[in-house]
């Protein structure tokens, strides 16, 4: 007889996510259902406002992947208004986006995902000298003496003995699916704490340019931070030196801590190659070296891979009304023309219509509507977005740097490329991407310095700042590759105000419910076929879901496009 389990809340994500899963007698997951359990209505709120303000509202869609919605927002407004931003603004935005991706991936690996593989309590049994020997054998990272690990272990023992386990309370410690030896667990716990301390340094790059983090400031037309090497209140050599130091330290941390840990941990889970899922991948691409419509200049390339076929990369065009559509057959919304047909974001609409059980409830009716997320599809195909998609698209397109890094990681793990199509592959791709992106940070820094040296201080294009210079009606599309995957913002501007605003975010692609043809979303597909050692402690579900790095505040920001009563906004 089939058994059903519910994991709600899913911790160590952004937002609110629920998983219901059906298992067979052998405790193998046969069907999984992914539910976004919140809705915030930010696009409803955006309607009628000044398009130059949109980035600030949109940025608040997510504070974990802060900046990404602000970036996509200024890009879509600039696209609509025909604004070319100065080279320095492009470089600064690229550097800020790379900063975000790097910090976000580091936090994800250590603080949101590691505890799915690392048993904190097991670290108490470790031999500190042995842990030190292992650490020194895999990395030149200096914090690796026997005394260092001994001291940490002492602190851990006291922490556990205090009886107040805090964030580690009631974890699945001792679960048989944990495979690391105590010494590797101890190293991982040490680096959990070190990474927690270090991540706050990386984001200072955003603070230099955007004034704060989380939620740094952006500006339609460029960036507000002025450059002047002879001013004490603009980007000068002290600010640049600070950025350079942070980039160097970040690259060192990734090379000497993150990547060695990833390889060491993955080495013990090589047999656990579940969670592959859809086999369809999409990337819009990002980090333009010229402008966003010059796709050849994107450092992360764009394209689609279907059915794990790395020999063909298909073009994707988010502006094409026939390609991307959002369906609502299993979502708590209605469409005015009926819920059977998907709608392109330009034509999209959202009328919230909760048909689930009144809370509190035990189960959702997964045959009907069961999520606040819509179901985006590319030409009716469900696709996965995120680091694995980006790495595979770059790999399939023959990007030499990615081929080299992927090759090196696979060789160290002694596995073939097919191992990438798994939960672990997703986790490894994030590390590979993090290393690549940290390299880009140095590249962007060099570009900025070269421009300043050449006397180019321009960061803002004022030609279209005044609304009187805008066309009466226009529309635009802005995109970025957020840490969690492809993000698109679609805007329509009319009479100097936002007429319509629509966002399709990475976690909506990945966490979406069934589509109108009954096909699973990426989380749902990835969970199918996973054996559970102990269904009352669903560690395996957390592992696979976390490998996507869920961000549900992003995914469930949804809104209304087409003027029903909840879209009324009064703006003077």
């Amino acid at each position: 007889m089939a058994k059903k389990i519910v994991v709600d809340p899913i911790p160590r994500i952004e937002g609110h996510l629920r998983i219901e899963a059906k298992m067979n007698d052998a405790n193998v997951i046969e069907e999984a259902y992914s539910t976004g359990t919140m809705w915030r209505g930010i696009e409803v709120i955006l309607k009628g406002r000044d398009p130059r303000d949109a980035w600030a509202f949109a940025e608040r869609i997510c504070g974990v992947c802060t900046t990404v919605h602000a970036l996509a927002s200024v890009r879509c407004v600039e696209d609509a208004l025909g604004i070319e931003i100065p080279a320095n603004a492009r470089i600064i935005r690229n550097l800020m986006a790379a900063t975000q991706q790097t910090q976000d991936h580091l936090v994800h690996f250590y603080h949101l995902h590691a505890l799915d593989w690392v048993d904190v309590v097991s670290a108490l049994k470790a031999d500190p000298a042995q842990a030190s020997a292992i650490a020194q054998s895999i990395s030149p990272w200096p914090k690796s003496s026997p005394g260092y690990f001994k001291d940490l272990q002492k602190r851990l023992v006291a922490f556990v003995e205090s009886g107040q386990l805090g964030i580690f309370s009631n974890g699945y410690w001792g679960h048989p699916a944990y495979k690391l030896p105590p010494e590797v667990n101890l190293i991982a716990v040490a680096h959990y704490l070190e990474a927690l301390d270090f991540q706050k340094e990386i984001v200072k790059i955003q603070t230099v340019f955007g004034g704060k983090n989380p939620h740094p400031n952006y500006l339609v037309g460029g960036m507000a931070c002025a450059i002047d090497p002879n001013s004490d209140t603009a980007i000068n050599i002290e600010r640049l030196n600070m950025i350079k130091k942070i980039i160097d330290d970040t690259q060192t941390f990734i090379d000497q801590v993150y990547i060695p840990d990833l390889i060491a941990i993955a080495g013990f889970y090589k047999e656990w190659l579940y969670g592959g899922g859809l086999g369809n991948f999409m990337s819009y691409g990002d980090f333009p070296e010229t402008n966003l419509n010059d796709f050849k200049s994107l450092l992360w390339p764009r394209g689609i891979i279907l059915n794990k076929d790395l020999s063909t990369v298909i073009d994707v065009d988010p502006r094409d009304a026939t390609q991307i559509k959002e369906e609502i057959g299993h979502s708590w919304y209605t469409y005015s023309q009926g819920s059977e047909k998907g709608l392109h974001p330009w034509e999209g609409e959202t009328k919230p219509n909760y048909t689930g059980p009144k809370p509190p409830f035990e189960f959702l009716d997964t045959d009907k509507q069961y999520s606040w997320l819509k179901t985006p599809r590319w030409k009716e195909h469900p696709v996965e977005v995120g680091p694995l998609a980006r790495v595979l698209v770059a790999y399939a397109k023959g990007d030499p740097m990615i081929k080299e890094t992927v090759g090196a990681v696979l060789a160290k793990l002694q596995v073939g490329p097919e191992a990438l199509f798994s939960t672990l592959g997703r986790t490894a791709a994030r590390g590979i991407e993090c290393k690549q992106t940290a390299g880009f940070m140095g590249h962007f820094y060099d570009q900025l310095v070269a421009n300043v040296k050449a006397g180019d201080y321009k960061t803002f294009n004022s030609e279209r700042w005044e609304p009187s210079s805008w066309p009466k009606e226009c529309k635009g599309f802005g995109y970025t590759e957020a840490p969690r995957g492809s993000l698109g913002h679609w805007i329509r501007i009319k009479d100097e105000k936002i007429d319509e605003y629509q966002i399709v975010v990475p976690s909506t692609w990945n966490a979406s419910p069934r589509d109108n043809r009954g096909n699973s979303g990426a989380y749902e597909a990835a969970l199918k076929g996973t054996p559970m050692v102990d269904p009352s402690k669903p560690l395996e579900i957390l592992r696979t879901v976390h490998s996507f790095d869920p961000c549900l505040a992003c995914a469930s920001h949804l809104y209304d496009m087409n003027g029903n009563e909840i879209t009324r906004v009064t703006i003077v």
Partner: protein
Amino acid sequence: MPDKQTFAEVFQSRGLSRRDFLKFCSLTSVSLGLAPSLLPKVVHAMETKPRTPVIWLHGLECTCCTESFIRSSHPIVGDMVMNMISLDYDETLSAAAGHQLEEVRRKIMKEYKGQYILAVEGNIPTKDDGVYCMIGGDSFLNVVKETAADAAAVIAWGACASFGCVQNAKPNPTGAKPVADVIKDKLIVKVPGCPPIAEVMTGVITHVHTFGKLPELDRMGRPKAFYGTRIHDKCYRRAFYDAGMFVRGFDEESTRKGWCLYKMGCKGPTTYNSCSKIQWNKGTSFPIGSGHPCIGCSEPGFWDNGPFYTRLADVSFLGTDTTADKIGMVAVGAAAAGAAAHAAVTAVKKKQHDQE
């Protein structure tokens, strides 16, 4: 009931010296802005106070408050969660999942009845039985009410929980409310900002531990230590404001020289926060310091007080603060009903503070 360790015991049991402990107390005092003479009091507090359990709930939000919290430079958050508080329930950081996580929340509520702190990040959607945010099969509305019932105090993190923030902006489709609109019978410490500054967040918690009581709050429930003055009052560009030297466009000579951003829409003159003093990310910068006008993210209803790039006073400036205050009869933005004058806003806000 688990053993409760004091800070001194925690330090001792972790193999740290008395000297380390005193150094920690000293740093904490500095971060709280205390006079050196108060150090012995801090030491005494740290020696005798047990770690307080904290239940940190997430509603309709973006998690920027948590992200800010983990950016704290003093104390660092590793120390905070390992040594200072017992962060027993937090969806963003907790190891446990599903019913095991809910079990932790219920256990803390029972075993530490009346002793735990409830920290709320995000809005509470109240429309349609609260179906716009559900956790563990129940509405966030119910979860907050249930958890607040036996809390010693409530901390409302950020603009969302304090005043409303982005979900609560017009037309507020989910009926999103700040904590104080739902929980009426508890003392609520409001720590506004989108997000609040990291050291302000950890400072509020450390204040409670160190002094054994909540920080003094202003009329609106904000700690005076961090929200006592306007950003404008301590802004390094204030001299340009007083001299009537204003930036009139981004990326101009005046921008590069750091003139006042008031005419670019800066809300510093009406915003109470520590941005111009503590600054962000260990004093790296703050919005005005990086050339962008303040959007007033710690003030109630700031989303509806835009557009952001509209100056507070749409008139010619004659150069001095006095003059600006006298003649600034202009709207703070759409939602500032009745066109509050810069002078009036200043006077009213100062008066509110003075009365406390």
